[in-house]
């Protein structure tokens, strides 16, 4: 299978702090890839570089063969980014928000289909016509995931999708992502919750202080470190 995303020796320096210190990994088409690590490890920084939001200090990133820095417009056409804790315009209704976002990707008949799809995926029922400001956290996250998925991106990049959600909502969101992956979307998700990632991802990369400390399938990693779960793998890999 071809690689949907390739990072080569990627560095990010904020001012004089090196947040990402030359990482490399690749994500294959159709898989859910997890980038896991503690808070401050450099996950968000990495995802923002992939999504053309931050300049890459050194190294290169390509999405489906397009260089992120040189062809950022091409890259934006084929990715969807769901930032951590992101929100929607609070004066709009859910439907208006979906329409506003869909208009960036399609027009004519395709636009209407995309809007329909977004509304269906958000599963908000008649609350789709309520102002976004009245939504609960879980509803908001469903709306945003629907927004991210409706253009059928080649690569979906999602940062801490379940952070701040209660158990029920987090479970529901994970189910949605699993569904999406079944439809052949490539996804890169980040999380500091290693259990969540283990149940969702076919492969993971572990990041700590801006370095990749391990990567592979959850099963291989557990075997390699003789661990019961990814948390143990992480602790042992870091100590090594």
């Amino acid at each position, binding site marked *: 299978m071809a690689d949907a995303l390739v990072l080569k020796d990627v560095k990010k320096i904020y001012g004089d702090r090196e947040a990402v210190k030359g990482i490399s990994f690749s994500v294959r088409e159709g898989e859910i890839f997890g980038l896991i690590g503690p808070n401050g490890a450099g996950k968000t920084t990495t995802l923002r570089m992939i999504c053309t939001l931050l300049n890459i200090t050194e190294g290169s990133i390509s999405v489906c063969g397009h260089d992120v820095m040189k062809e950022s417009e091409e890259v934006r056409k084929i990715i969807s980014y769901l930032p951590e804790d992101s929100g929607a315009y609070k004066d709009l209704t859910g439907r208006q928000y979906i329409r*506003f976002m869909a208009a960036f990707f399609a027009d004519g008949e395709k636009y209407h289909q995309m809007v329909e799809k977004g509304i269906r995926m958000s599963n908000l029922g008649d609350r789709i016509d309520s102002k976004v400001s009245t939504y609960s956290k879980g509803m908001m996250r469903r709306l945003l995931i629907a927004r991210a998925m409706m253009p059928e991106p080649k690569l979906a990049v999602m940062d801490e999708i379940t952070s701040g959600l209660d158990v029920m909502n987090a479970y529901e969101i994970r189910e949605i992502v699993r569904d999406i992956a079944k439809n052949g979307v490539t996804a890169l998700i980040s999380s500091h919750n290693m259990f969540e990632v283990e149940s969702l991802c076919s492969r993971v990369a572990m990041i700590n202080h801006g370095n990749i400390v391990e990567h592979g399938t959850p099963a291989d990693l557990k075997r390699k470190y003789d661990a019961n779960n990814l948390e143990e793998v992480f602790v042992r890999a870091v100590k090594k």
Partner: protein
Amino acid sequence: MNHLVNITKKELKELLTPGSIVSIVVVMVLLMSVGTVIGGEVEESSAAADIGVVYDAGAGIDPAASYAYLDTPAEIKLLIQDAYAYLYGTDGGTAASFIHYLDVASGDDDGIIAAMESKGLSYVISVPDAITSNIAGIKTMSGAEQTRIDTYFIFKDEGLFGSASDSVGTSLVGAMNSILSKKIADMAISGDSSYILQPLTWGGDGNHTSVNGTVYSGITPYALSGSMMSQSLMVPIVVMIVILMVGSVVISSMGSEKENKTLETLLTMPIRRTTIISGKLLAAAIVGLVYGVAYMIGMMFYMTGLTVGSTDVNLSDYGLSLGMLDWVILMAILFLAIFSALGICMILGAFTKNYKMAQQMTMPISFLAIIPMFVFMFMSWSALPALGKALMFLIPFSHPMMAMNNLMLGDMSVILGGMAYLLIFDAITIFITVKIYNSDILITGLEQTKFMRKLNKLFNMKKEDHENS
């Protein structure tokens, strides 16, 4: 759909809410009605008014009275009536109906005030009985004496225009004085004394003023600048309002993008950054235009209300009007200035973190708009000292505020220099804006730039020094 239209439409949807539209309309109606009310009051205070007179209350007016010897009360009453008729341009009968004789002794202050209050009069003149004998003294030049006419007012706080009346009481006495002196002089020379009393004439068509090199008769610079003021007073105010509106719209739009955490998503949409910038700017410009037109209409009513009472000078009679080209230039300058406001705010907006910070960030723009507004409401460009000129020239928002007067006076160096300055200013702000919106600053904020870090370090070092010593 066009992406620019998409963004602009969404921004407008957020900006032109029913609430904001209601507030525009309310302000407009408020301005209009305040203008009409003030206009009404100005008009009222120069219209014929009731006046009380303390003099020979019992006798009544003799319709057959005429100026024979100027030594009977009937003649004095005729004098008062003629003076009133002259002052307000009414006929004798109307004048008589406004003059109320009070049955009080002259010199009895409390009694006079009490009578005024019971009759609801704002002023009263009190003529002593000695006036007839004093006039007789003047005629014979034996023991000639002046007669003091006392005037009584009741102070009420009626605002600037409401209490405009103390001149009315005294001008009535002034008119009496003129008529009386002419009558006495007529008698003395047994003929028309007009030429003795007024051998010179001046004013009116005797005034000659050079405007932009052409000499016009019958006008003074004072009348011209008064009229220009009332016309161009509006421009700085409206420009200020539009700049403030547009600026706060742009900055708070960025502030709310950050507060609601929508900016990152928007920036990953498959469109150019410049489209996002333009969409926001376009929406702000449209809102600014809506506000500008609404306030302009309101202000126009407000100003016409204010100028009702004063003499109307038609500026275009003196070559002081704007031609087609002048309007085009005025609009171009206004556009360039608004654009510079948009640019500055877009740059400031990039650094806001939330809505509250956005509102604080409108402060510098407000200052830059309010200072030239006050300056050009009360002063013109040519009246400014050199330093003032330099400062005003540097503030981009000054240029549309003074453009109207400078265009009328043909002061093209300031106009053209201003346009060139605005063009350069705008080009630089666009350049900086595009640079910022293509950099990390939008996402990471200012603290993370090298410059700010160095600044912070320097600051912390100083603090440590302080603590160590």
